[in-house]
């Protein structure tokens, strides 16, 4: 053991209470950082996962609410035309050549799944109960590739849908409200007035109320029949990418290629993602404040120690310790406080995180959640200890430098 280390150790152990108080400052800061970061990133990951299950990476559809030029402008292009309260044109949300478009997109190497779908508003009737909802016509195996439907099935199998012409897979929330089970038959009515009886072959749960309470899946052909449309009638194309973070840059390419609105998941869920950013800002600002407070604590304690040790520093210098040696002695002390304080903080943080992750929390009808989601990613533990040691090093540097610069003669002469 080097001499500076030994002297630092003796100083720390000579005043255990003071050392402990200094460490506790760091411990508290780091512990809170870990607990907060664990909870916040846990929530972030959870919401991100939820948005991923409910929306595709890129969604191509026919945006019928887009502004269109009035007929007046076509007739009189050079004049000043004012049209008030323009009546929407009767257009179908159909994507032209959707299946060919899907084939083209499928060949893109950045794409790992393409699912053409069509969906419609429908009424579900079961006995006297009548509920509003949507029905999606999908190739269920493609859909499984995109949203991992198989793992979300609560009853039945997705292959059962493929095998039947009048089957549907219903969201658990919708099934509960209708009071139906797998094997029951429900009557559906489209806005156009077409009625059909379908058989429930399975139920699924995504974990989000807005999906589970209204959506059912059926085969594409079944929904085309319900809507009384031809076999090429497709309203949406959902795309899964190899890297979902590229969605934002790829979406405009597909929009230009297809001529239809192409929306990436970040835009579609921007409110969710704003929450993520705000939580991150909160976490880091609160943790930083805690650590700065701990840093001031260390600065004070070290300053006081050095003030009390003026004579010792003077004699050490007389005996041949250089300014650097003296600085080292006090830097070691602050780093030891920082390191062990942070280490204890990581443990406290882990215990807090564990306690939070076991706390019951009812997500209600909106999201299916019974405990807080907590992230135990070791990366944040590494950040925590680096953060803690850095803060103490900065806080300890100034008093240590002061000690190293002190003139021993002034002290020794009395």
């Amino acid at each position, binding site marked *: 053991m080097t001499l500076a280390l030994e002297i630092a150790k003796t100083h720390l152990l000579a005043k255990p209470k003071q050392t402990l108080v200094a460490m506790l400052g760091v411990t508290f800061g780091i512990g809170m950082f870990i607990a907060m970061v664990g909870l916040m990133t846990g929530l972030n990951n959870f919401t991100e996962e939820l948005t991923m299950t409910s929306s595709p990476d890129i969604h191509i559809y026919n945006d019928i609410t887009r502004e269109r030029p009035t007929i007046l402008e076509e007739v009189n292009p050079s004049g000043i035309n004012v049209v008030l309260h323009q009546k929407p044109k009767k257009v179908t949300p159909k994507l032209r050549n959707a299946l060919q478009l899907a084939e083209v997109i499928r060949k893109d190497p950045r794409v790992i799944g393409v699912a053409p779908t069509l969906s419609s508003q429908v009424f579900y009737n079961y006995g006297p109960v009548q509920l509003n909802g949507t029905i999606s016509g999908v190739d269920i195996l493609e859909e499984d590739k995109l949203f991992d439907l198989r793992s979300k099935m609560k009853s039945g199998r997705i292959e059962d849908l493929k095998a039947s012409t009048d089957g549907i897979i219903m969201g658990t929330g919708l099934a509960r409200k209708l009071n139906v089970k797998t094997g029951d038959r429900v009557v559906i009515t489209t806005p156009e007035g077409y009625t059909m009886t379908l058989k429930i072959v399975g139920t699924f749960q995504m974990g989000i109320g807005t999906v589970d309470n209204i959506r059912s899946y059926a085969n594409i052909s079944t929904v085309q029949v319900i809507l009384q449309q031809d076999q090429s009638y497709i309203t949406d194309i959902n795309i899964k990418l190899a890297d979902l973070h590229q969605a934002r840059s790829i979406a405009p390419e597909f929009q230009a290629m297809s001529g239809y609105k192409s929306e990436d998941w970040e835009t579609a869920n921007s409110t969710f993602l704003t929450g993520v950013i705000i939580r991150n800002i909160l976490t880091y600002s609160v943790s930083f404040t805690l650590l700065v407070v701990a840093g001031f604590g260390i600065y004070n304690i070290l300053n006081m120690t050095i003030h009390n040790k003026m004579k010792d520093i003077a004699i*050490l210098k007389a005996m041949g310790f*250089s300014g650097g040696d003296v600085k080292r002695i006090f830097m070691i002390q602050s780093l030891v406080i920082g390191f062990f304080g942070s280490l204890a903080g990581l443990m406290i943080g882990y215990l807090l995180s564990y306690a939070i992750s076991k706390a019951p929390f009812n997500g209600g009808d909106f999201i299916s959640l019974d405990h807080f989601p907590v992230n135990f990613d070791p990366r944040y533990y590494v950040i925590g200890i680096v953060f803690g040691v850095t803060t103490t090093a900065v806080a300890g540097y100034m008093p240590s430098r002061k000690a190293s610069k002190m003139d021993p003669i002034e002290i*020794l002469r009395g």
Partner: protein
Amino acid sequence: MEQVLRTHKVTKYFYDPEKFQVLKEIDLSVNRGEFLSLVGKSGCGKSTLMYVLSTMDTDYEGELEISGERLTGKSQNELARFRNEHIGFVFQFHYLLPEFTALQNVMIPALKLKRYSHKEVEERAYEKLKMLGMQDFALKPSNKLSGGQQQRVAIARGIINDPDIIMGDEPTGNLDTYNTHLVFDIFRELTHTYRQTIIAVTHDSEFARNSDRVIEMSDGKIVGSSAQGVVKP
């Protein structure tokens, strides 16, 4: 006689509160094995001179040489190393490190020097403590020792690296008569038996009278030098 310390025209000013010349062209040489006392009234510059000689004060004009090495103009780090190896200190207030035992206090300068292994350093520290009659207190915390005992430990610490010179700033200033005699006898033995050089600033006229050479200062100048208490102009 072998010269161990030599100064040439050492001059020093204080600037606070106003410019004031404390040391005026001091020429001094000290032989090996000499027991030298620096005396003079308060404010005559004797302590200031000692701190210049000790290399801790570098803000002076003139030249300083110890053991044939010119020390004027060296960096603080070089001087620290030099002090560690060549100069021992004994102060009025003992300045032991209170958290450490007597033995550890004695060992610290030697551990810093790294000339010997840890084990050898410990043996040597015991030897020095024994020489000063302090071996029984070696493992006591230094703040549990009496003033005289602490001063003896401080002397042991001062000689652990076999320095060329021991510098003392009122080494007996804070001790009772018994301990003053004790410390004086130790110094005496160190110079005569071990040929150790000692330069001590003192107010104690008896202490000074019994040393080998007395240098009297007044107003920043050496006004008298005497051997065995006889003042020669």
